[in-house]
């Protein structure tokens, strides 16, 4: 029988709270916040994905918005073809579009994984500042690719005619969609927990701490990091597929480089190198954005300096602050 620790108790409580959220919001008469919560959970998935490479692997990727974008566009493009009955590819093997989540979402994951693989293949040859700038530049390249894709709306983006269909679920129902996203978020967290706890994760962390030593004892760290980067891109693509369904709209602004910056902010704000940190960071960042933008339309003039203060004085993130408070620091 597994030992019951404060950690597992906390996890159970957190899951219970997440599941109880829609009825609670209903009770207090603010059911529209379910959509806000869904959006937060989707970005939490993307932030967890980024944390795999950023926190555990020490690879500062400044281009993760690109993978979200590729995932979102995959769903958007397939849906467009399904709606107007045209073919995606014409030729010996004609391929049409689809609304089915069971086809479109895995394809979104696959497409992002492929893009991440090729970007990683080149970028991971470099390190440090070079890596930051190269991931940024590649993300920008993909951004411009979608901007110039006139068939699918170019700069103006692409409206989805309908959401994906999944096993007879009503994805138009905010609550149903919320539970689906929460289920995926928890699945991603469990997967990542297994991943970082396994030998694979130890090698990734080892490469972050001392790559030369890991090489010397025989681990091909480049390959491990490439796999890690690809998995991370794939998960971010899944978040993109969900985001496309929530907003029913995809546009190049999903891939804008400030998005990648915001994802880094979420991870660092929450606490990098932990799995719950990015989730906490996503909640905090998006709620703060909400609150500050209610306060003034010029909310960034507050948020910018706030970010600098966080970096200067609390660079281990909110989770780090909490842990320091309870003396329960493991990192």
């Amino acid at each position, binding site marked *: 029988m597994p030992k019951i620790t404060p950690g597992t108790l906390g996890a159970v409580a957190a899951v219970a709270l997440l599941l109880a959220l829609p009825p609670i919001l209903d009770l207090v008469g603010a059911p529209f916040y379910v959509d806000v919560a869904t959006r937060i959970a989707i970005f939490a998935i993307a932030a967890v994905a980024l944390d795999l490479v950023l926190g555990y692997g020490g690879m500062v990727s400044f281009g993760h918005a690109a993978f979200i974008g590729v995932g979102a566009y995959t769903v958007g493009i397939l849906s467009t073809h399904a709606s107007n009955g045209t073919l995606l590819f014409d030729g010996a093997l004609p391929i049409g579009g689809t609304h089915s989540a069971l086809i479109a979402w895995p394809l979104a994951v696959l497409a992002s994984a492929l893009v991440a693989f090729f970007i990683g293949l080149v970028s991971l040859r470099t390190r440090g500042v*070079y890596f*930051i*700038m190269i991931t940024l530049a590649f993300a920008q390249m993909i951004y411009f690719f979608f901007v110039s*894709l006139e068939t699918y709306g170019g700069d103006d983006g692409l409206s989805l005619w309908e959401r994906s269909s999944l096993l007879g679920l009503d994805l138009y129902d905010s609550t149903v969609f919320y539970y689906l996203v929460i289920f995926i978020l928890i699945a991603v967290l469990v997967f990542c927990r297994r991943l970082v706890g396994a030998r694979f994760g130890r090698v990734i962390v080892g490469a972050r701490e001392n790559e030369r030593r890991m090489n010397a004892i025989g681990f091909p760290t480049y390959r491990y990091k490439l796999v890690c980067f690809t998995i991370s891109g794939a998960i971010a693509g899944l978040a993109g597929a969900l985001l496309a369904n929530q907003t029913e709209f995809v546009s190049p602004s999903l891939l804008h480089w400030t998005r990648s*910056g915001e994802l880094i*902010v979420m991870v660092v704000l929450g606490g990098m190198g932990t799995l719950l940190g990015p989730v906490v960071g996503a909640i905090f960042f998006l709620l703060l954005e909400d609150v500050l933008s209610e306060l003034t339309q010029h909310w*960034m003039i507050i948020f910018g300096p706030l970010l600098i203060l*966080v970096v*200067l004085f609390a660079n281990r993130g909110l989770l780090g602050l909490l842990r320091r408070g309870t003396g329960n620091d493991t990192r």
Partner: protein
Amino acid sequence: MTAALFAEQVLNGLQLGVMLFLMAAGLTLVFGIMNLINLAHGSLYMMGAYLTATFQQATGSFFLGLLLALPATAVVAMLVELVALRQLYDRDHLDQVLATFGLILFFNELTRIIWGPSAYFLDVPEVLSGTVEVLPGIPYPAFRLAILLAGLAVAAFLFFLIARTRLGMLIRAGASNREMVSALGVDIRLLYTLVFGLGAALAALAGGMAGPILAVQVGMGESILILTFVVIVIGGIGSVHGALVAALLVGLVDTFGSVLLPAAAAEMAIYLLMALILVWRPSGLFPVNA
């Protein structure tokens, strides 16, 4: 492509190249000496453009406006260095990225508050509004030619400054071993602030000169910032002459790409160039700490 069109595109490419060099020189110096990656360098470019616009309206002269905008931007930058960036030199790159990302958000919003959300369009100064016949039968806008010449002059000045003056000697020394420079009694903090101000003035020059050919608007610094990153990555981070070579290369590839290639491929051309160069040389063409 006719010879005339070809010559014109070469000049356009070189003109974009020297603009990128003005940006890249500051960024790469700051990185080489202070080990600081400064995302807010594009904001200084934007500041330069807006201040040029404001001073031009006040004085009625573009050149006077530009001349005033350079020290003004440098002062703003040095204040930012004193208040915030100074704390970041010993931090890791991730912290620097985050803090300077915060600075971008701050500067963009500040600009929106002071100058409003709509774009400014500066007039090309009277003297340079015509065209010049660079080669027989090939006219070229005088203003663009002036940008090209000004950029080359600044590049020459910069190489003289770094290679031949006492300040340049300290800059080179600071880049290779800052503890030693500091131990020899040089006020290294003052040197850092000066270098940061110099980089800012160069960015402001680029921004001010871009004013009449591009729209002066919030966010204008970010598109050129990312191109500048491509430049210094290709050139080798910290290397000023690498920055010059890479800036001209990127300027030419970008210009010819948009003439010769279909739209989607044109936007991607310089990034593919970067990828190819990095596969061949992961630390850029002129790595500093080989």
